[in-house]
């Protein structure tokens, strides 16, 4: 028995962490948020060059053949740096399509095929969101599609099953988070004869990846709070020496650390197809969203007035966590899914 990361996994995470720390500074994130197309395109190219998009693609199809546990380690780094990366969408798609004989899998690894995902309807349909297949046409549109900008394909939910298709009109939705683009999306066509895994399993993978993103963002907010508390002085002392501040930091760490173990466990459970895997994945995103929200507001408070300003840019993390919480399963919706999964709903 060994509950922990392998040498390779630690190295993988270290590589991505270093890339994020060195190549994606806050200044760059500000430009992304301001919609600077040149910067956005360059970042996408740099991220593509990391060669991570085929992480979940089998080696036979040109990928790295790694697991969901490896993928969440990468996504955690992107959350830590509030990096807009296609990695999450590509990973969900690679998981949905691998071992199905789909040629798309190959394209994901090579970067020729770029997928957006539109799975939000699985737990929440508002304002008429939803795609309907009828004969050869797809009607309707879906809200909160991710990464469809510049994508060649989309993985979406239509008629309560998962399909791949060609994206149609995409209308960006303005959310609080300007670093990532979410869209209202229609579809040109649905691919026929493509096998995908069942929707619960694919959604579970999306959940652990979103949870990893939140975990990373929350870890960064905790680190920033601790660092700020060690610097900022009031009443002739650093504020981190006051228990009122110190205990807030301890509470953040006390919630975060077990959540990291939970996320590892949930991802591993998907990899080994454990019978508790789905419930654990849904509860992982629900729980990590809850503690993420707590850390987002608490870290902001530790930063005092500066936390509220644009100067330190803490709000990019705050908003990332806030958006992750609602997209692809709010905590409440996911807890209900977990209850259903365990036969606790009549």
């Amino acid at each position: 028995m060994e509950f922990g990361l392998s040498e390779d996994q630690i190295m993988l995470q270290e590589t991505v962490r270093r890339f994020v720390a060195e190549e994606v500074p806050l200044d760059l994130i500000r430009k992304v948020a301001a919609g600077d197309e040149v910067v956005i395109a360059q970042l996408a190219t740099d991220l593509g060059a990391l060669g991570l998009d085929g992480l979940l693609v089998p080696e036979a199809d040109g990928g790295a053949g790694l697991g969901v546990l490896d993928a969440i380690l990468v996504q955690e780094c992107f959350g830590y740096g509030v990096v807009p990366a296609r990695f999450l969408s590509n990973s969900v798609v690679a998981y949905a399509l691998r071992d199905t004989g789909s040629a798309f899998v190959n394209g994901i690894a090579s970067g020729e095929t770029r997928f957006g995902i539109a799975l939000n309807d699985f737990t929440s349909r508002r304002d008429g969101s939803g795609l309907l297949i009828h004969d050869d046409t797809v009607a309707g549109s879906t809200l909160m599609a991710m990464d469809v900008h510049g994508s060649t394909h989309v993985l979406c939910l239509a008629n309560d099953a998962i399909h791949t298709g060609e994206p149609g009109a995409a209308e960006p939705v303005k959310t609080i988070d300007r670093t990532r683009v979410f869209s209202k999306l229609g579809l040109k066509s649905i691919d026929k004869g493509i096998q995908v895994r069942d929707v619960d399993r694919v959604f579970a993978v999306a959940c652990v990846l979103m949870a990893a993103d939140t975990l990373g963002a929350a870890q960064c907010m905790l680190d920033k709070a601790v660092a700020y508390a060690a610097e900022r002085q009031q009443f002739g002392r650093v504020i981190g020496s006051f228990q009122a501040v110190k205990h807030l930091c301890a509470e953040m760490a006390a919630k975060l650390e077990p959540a990291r173990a939970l996320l590892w466990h949930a991802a591993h459970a998907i990899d080994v197809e454990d019978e508790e895997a789905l419930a654990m994945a849904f509860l992982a995103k629900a729980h990590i969203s809850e503690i993420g929200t707590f850390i987002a507001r608490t870290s902001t408070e530790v930063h005092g007035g500066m936390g509220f300003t644009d100067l330190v840019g803490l709000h990019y993390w705050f908003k990332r966590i806030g958006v992750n919480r609602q997209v692809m399963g709010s905590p409440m919706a996911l807890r209900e899914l977990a209850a259903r999964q365990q036969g606790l709903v009549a």
Partner: protein
Amino acid sequence: MDLTLSPEYAAFRDQIADTLKANAHLAPGPEDKGLKHPKRLAWQDFLIREGLTARTIPTEYGGYGAEPDILKSRIIAEEFARSGLPRPLAGQGISMLVPTLLELGTPEQKEAYIERTLKGELIWCQGYSEPGAGSDLAAVRTRAVDDGDDFVINGQKIWTSTARQADMMFCLVRTDPDAKKHHGITYILFPMDTPGIEVRPLVDMTGAANFNEVFFTDVRVPKSGVVFEVNKGWQVANATLTHERGMLGDPNATKARFVELVELMKTETVNGQRLIDNPVLRDRLMALQGEVYAMQANGLRITTNRLKGESPGLSGLVVKLQGCELNHQIAGLAIDALGELGILYEEGEHLRSGGSWQWRYMYDLGLIIGGGTAQIQKNIIAERGLSMPREPRPARS
């Protein structure tokens, strides 16, 4: 990441499960009351012989004499939880004094106490906290004055569990009032029937006296009871305090309570509807399950760290704070789910689960405070886990 057991450990687990199953008839039941009930002592004896407790304690001191193996210890704990059989004795003598004596006791002390303690023949109580020394344990003032071959003790202890049943006490006393506060303390053992010791039960919010106060008036005890050295008691006590905190917040126990709560909500009804069918209660239940999963995974991570000889760091430091809080919340949800039946206590026709949820809700609050308060835990997490500034040290007098 590999959560499967190797063939050796899988076989070990099966063997433990079989042993427990085949010998379940030896286990004492709830009717066999009293710490020294013959059936309890016989069960403990059996468990030691089978290596299910006192596993790594050398055979010369009455233990089983196995090599330390964290994974095997974990498997044994899990199999006990699964079997529902009474666990081995785990009083403060066994969990705190025995490891201390093994490390620092004289040959005579080891000889005299370890085996009888393991077998449950010798019950101990812990004389640490005082009215003026709670979180600030090193402020103990119970005075021991040097008098030839003896010390003469005057003062008071509080929060002493099993003081009424105990044969012996392991105690922190002040032997040098002029030294800095951590340097004038001695760790000493003596019988509870020594003249001048008075035990008064301390009734707590559960209605029972789970703890006691112990008063010392000119209590004369031999110096041979000193563990390690005079005035080095703080070091001795610190070795075992870390042990105590590890015991509180065990995720296996929390999981067992959560499973009980799910069962309760599936069977109990209100207005003709199962409690689990109420969406608000169900949502709270699932939120707690997320936390239970997290603490279990955290426990697995700590076990792996220890197996590799690495420090678990933050994941270890948060267990007491998070685990005790979670237990309290599980009991809180059970009470809310039971509503007006949740406030019934002790006896009566409508009582559920013997009133144990209320008892736990109150007792668990005691555990949030005891064994290092939540606030002290947060200091430790911040200082040792996050390297934040230490609490200012007041002048030591």
